[in-house]
């Protein structure tokens, strides 16, 4: 009787999924490209506005039917991507533009008062429900498209800043940052060149999700009469305003909604793929 036995079969370790990220990347790229191309090239393709037809009808040369004020849906789809993409992307970018320095400064400083001065007001903003915030600010200052981007960015800043700070604080506590200080590197080079670069991955993940939120916040704001006209050619506005006709003329809702879904899903997939590529820390 041998007390020895093979307890574990020998095998080639864990399977290795090397082929997947490119597939995810490709899918994400396709999903992003369709709405993006439509958004950027659409305005170049449309002709003049045709005569209005009755609202929510199909046929009569309108192959996607008409919308809630009798305009051609396809024309609106072509025109409506640019503001969505521009405003939403601008707002997301703006939010990070403010959140990044705030988060980086407070993560890198050793002065508690500075960190508190920067972050505590944001905590106050965070405690105001964004619903109330948008509702009130929007009514007080009736902003235009730029104002809208600013407002949506503003609502997103506290949260984004917290995320940046958390990620940056993690990096900032590593010896690498102390080593850079030891070398007399400038604050900029440490903050941007090293810490900023190291937190790109968590930020990319956050940005993908944030963009989705921003898109619908823009649509909501448009509905409230901020920034974009309530009948503007804008996918998000179209989804919202045409919903009354969902059962009569679904295309006016479905097509822009699908484009938005494709855009946000694609962005998220791309972020995921980007995340995977980097080395695991």
């Amino acid at each position, binding site marked *: 009787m041998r007390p020895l036995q093979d307890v574990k079969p020998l095998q080639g370790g864990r399977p290795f999924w090397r082929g997947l990220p490119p597939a995810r990347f490709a899918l994400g790229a396709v999903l992003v490209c369709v709405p993006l191309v439509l958004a950027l090239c659409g305005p170049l393709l449309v002709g003049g*506005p045709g005569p*209005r037809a009755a*609202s*929510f009808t199909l046929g009569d040369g309108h192959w996607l039917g008409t919308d*809630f004020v009798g305009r051609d849906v396809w024309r609106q789809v072509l025109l409506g991507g640019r503001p969505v993409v521009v405003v939403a992307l601008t707002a997301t970018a703006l939010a990070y533009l403010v959140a990044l320095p705030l988060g980086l400064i407070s993560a890198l400083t050793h002065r508690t008062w500075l960190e508190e001065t920067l972050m505590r007001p944001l905590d106050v903003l965070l405690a105001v429900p964004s619903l109330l915030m948008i509702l009130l600010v929007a009514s007080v200052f009736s902003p235009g498209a730029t104002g809208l981007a600013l407002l949506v960015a503003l609502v997103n800043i506290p949260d984004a800043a917290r995320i940046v700070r958390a990620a940056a604080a993690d990096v900032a506590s590593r010896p690498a940052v102390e080593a850079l200080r030891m070398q007399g590197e400038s604050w900029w080079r440490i903050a941007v060149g090293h810490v900023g670069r190291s937190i790109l991955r968590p930020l990319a993940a956050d940005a993908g999700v944030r963009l989705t939120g921003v898109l619908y916040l823009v649509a909501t704001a448009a509905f409230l*009469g901020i920034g974009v006209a309530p009948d503007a050619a804008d996918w998000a506005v179209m989804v*919202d305003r045409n919903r009354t*006709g969902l059962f009569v003329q679904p295309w006016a809702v479905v097509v822009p909604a699908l484009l938005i879904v494709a855009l946000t899903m694609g962005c998220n997939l791309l972020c995921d793929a980007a995340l995977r590529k980097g080395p695991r820390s």
Partner: protein
Amino acid sequence: MQDYPGLRRRGFLAAASGIGALTLVGCGDSGSGNKSGGADGGGDGKPRRGGRLRAAFAGGGASETLDPHLANLFADVARAKALFDKLADYGDDLSAQPRLASGWEPNAGLDRWKVTLRKADFHDGKPVTAEDVLFSFRRIADPEKAFRAKASLEPIDLKASRAVDERTVEFVLKRPTAEFPNVLAAFGAYIVPDGSSAADFDKKPVGSGPFRFVSFTPGRSAVFRRNDDHWDGAPHLDEVEFVVANEESARVNALLGGQVEYAHELNPTTARAHEGKGQIEIVRLRNSAMQAFAMKTDRAPFDDKRVREAFFLIADRQELIDGALSGAGVVGNDLFGKGYEYYADGLPQREQDLDRARALLKQAGAEKLKVTLDTSAVAAGFTEAASIFRDQAAKAGVTVDVKMGSKDSYWADILDSGTLCCYRSGAMPIEAHLSQRLLTDSTTNATKWHHKDFDALYQQAQATKDDKERAAVFGRMQRRLYAEGGFLVWGFADWIIGTAKGVKGVDRKAPANTLDWARFDKVWLA
């Protein structure tokens, strides 16, 4: 991240109040309720007694009250109408129909009116008396409170008015008012028992209406039971429940799902989706809401009547109806009150004429005109109409800049500022429209229409006892407005109601705000 459909809920406030009167119309004992109820009931078969009807309205949330004098929204009015009665109410053509008043008689000078009450009881068994009427009117006119109907009662000198006997009131007026019955039918002029207070209405309101109070939760539901002793005959229904659903799709879904039997204020698109499908009934109340653009006639560029006429000619009214109202309405002819008593329907229908519009603008030296059009999400179709009109104006070389305003303060904002705005009005007598909006001292003169001769015409009409003569004066006033007024009335929207298949006796002609609209005592469940 969220979305705010609730914001759409505030349909326009039902509006009607009048100053002055001329003669009595439809005076007599035959209540219009019986008349219209009978007429509609005919098509629906024999009324069946019993059952509970649930009606969904857009409401006012937790601030709602059952105080009938505070009624502001459609839901408030529908509830008030079930619990209370007015002395008179509007018929389908917006003429005053007697209700608690069995009749009225003016003196020769038209400034002293004797109103006789019919025999009716409040829910607590006490009779409705002249003192109750005077109490109710004095409560409304209380300067401490700012009840909506106060302005409508302005012609009455309440100090001098008195109860002649138990069931006769003598109203002393400040000036001749031929259309005085309109005052009695004014929006919110409900009769409540002498001594009622706000607290009573919150706890257990007592009225003389066709239904008695059972329960009420602000912003949610109100349940009322049949008043078997109602003077106009007991309702067919055992109970009616008013539920609040601010989102239109929720009202439709509740109706489709059998959770309510009556849904008030539906979208034209919804109506199109379900009309004739057999699942639910769609009722379109025609001529319910005037749709207009209001031009301020006292300032450039609209102080030039050629510019105003050019704007009349720019509008493609059918396109506005199709686009902004989804086809649920009829074109307007720049006059208020299509289908109402005294409406000047002999005038030719105005059509789009861009060439002539351009020519007029050129004459006025207003080529390449730029104007700002104020609009807001305050009422359905406003923003849509604004953008459609912007496109139409562009064809005549006019640049319209659409400006979105706050929906909560829109009406106050547009009263004095701006030059051009979207405007809309619920049903009211033409006389009331004139007196509230088009006289020099009108409180809500959004077109800044200040003309002494026009004011004089109005005074003349109110002092004219003869119906025909008075109609002729109103006709003259309307022709003037048609030619050079400040209201570009492009259409009249339908008011759309959905009912379950079994609901019968719903009036199909009464515009919103009139007696037979949202009236449940003549409705039954088949």
